[in-house]
């Protein structure tokens, strides 16, 4: 909570554009990393992304905050179903989002986080559901761009709030 207030104050003080991540938040985030980079380091493995999971599904990707003409599927807080689940990633451009059920010519047949990044570097990723255009529930479920600590989770949440969302963090 305190962190959140401080970040908001700093953000306003610096009058940063909402499309740029405040340096105070970047300082908390895990450094930009390749998909599965940290996992592979920790486990001494070379887990790779699957076929076509690096295809950029650009037509279906959109940025946050939402543009006026950007439609989204909304879910009730008590009914977070897979068909309305979005994937989010945070990179230097800010948040990018795609509906997970977007068709993709990969073995899993639907979008994954690297279909947003083209398998390039990002800070973090996860899943989210829109409750309306300014309210979301989110988690940090991404094996490709994971978070390590609660502090990082809270920093991401703060940035969502800074760009105008009311956020419910999911367990």
């Amino acid at each position, binding site marked *: 909570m305190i962190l959140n207030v401080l970040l908001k104050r700093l953000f306003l003080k610096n009058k940063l554009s909402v499309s740029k991540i405040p340096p105070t938040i970047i300082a908390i985030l895990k450094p930009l990393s390749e998909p599965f980079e940290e996992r592979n380091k*920790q*486990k001494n493995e070379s887990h790779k992304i*699957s*076929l076509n999971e690096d295809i950029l599904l650009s037509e279906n990707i959109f940025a946050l905050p939402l543009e006026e003409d950007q439609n989204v599927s909304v879910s009730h807080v008590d009914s977070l179903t897979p068909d309305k689940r979005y994937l989010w990633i945070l990179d230097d451009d800010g948040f990018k989002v795609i509906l997970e059920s977007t068709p993709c010519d990969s*073995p899993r047949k639907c979008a*994954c986080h690297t279909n947003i990044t083209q398998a390039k570097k990002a800070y973090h990723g996860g*899943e989210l559901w829109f409750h309306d255009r300014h309210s979301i529930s989110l988690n940090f479920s991404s*094996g490709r761009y994971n978070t390590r*600590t609660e502090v990082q989770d809270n920093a991401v949440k703060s940035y969502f709030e800074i760009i105008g969302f009311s956020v419910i963090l999911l367990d």
Partner: protein
Amino acid sequence: MSVPKKYIVGKTFIEGSYDIPGNRIKSTVFVKIDNSDADLQTIVKPRTGSFKKRSPKSRTNKTGFLMQQLATRLPYNSPFPGEIIVIHQVKMKELELPPSFRSSKVAFPQTSRLNKTSKTKDRIPETLSAVEIPNKGTFNVKLKDIYLPTEINLSSMEVKVPVLFQQSQYLQQQDSIWKLSVIIGAENFKKLLKKFDNVVDENFVIESFKESKEFFYTNKDYTIFVDTPQPKFIKKYGELIKISILDTLSYLTVDDIECIIEKTIFKK
């Protein structure tokens, strides 16, 4: 009679395609000869498509005919053990099933999760009916297991490989075979396919996990499984125990395990 060669894998399978006269079903039959217990396993896969409803009598004849066709195709001195095991693709579309199977009211669970405490084979009825084959005698026909011919893309390769898929408690959907390839790596998957004559069954899953060095972390109750022991998980769930992928199989399916890698966490 056309015989697609791609499913003929070594000496394990004899495969043929049979037209059953009088109806529009064309069946692909896979014969598996298991020398270890001298069983003969037959896989019958009716092609999907529209065909006319037939009278029970004619259906019985056609089942018998199929068995006859099979018998005539076998070498004279084949190690006939005294019984034939018919392995049938069971889709509960009635018209696709021969009457002997339908009347036995067998429904192999297609979507529901199998009870992990019991072996798959215990849940499938053994003898369904006896079939008389001229000059060969009467044989017990069993619905023991299902082998479904399919093709899959290895996770990181363009190549499609033919696979005979057998549903098991660990891997229930053929659509999920690629997840095994993701978990153990495409190259290892390819090597194992060769070793297992392209059959992806329960043993394949176990063997692939035995050879894998993959591991995860779980809580004391084995209800939370995480990919890496991140500080936030330890804070939330307490001490996390390292668990090998083979041991993970005692609690989770292949689908669940792939989820750990893709989403970092799986909760039972």
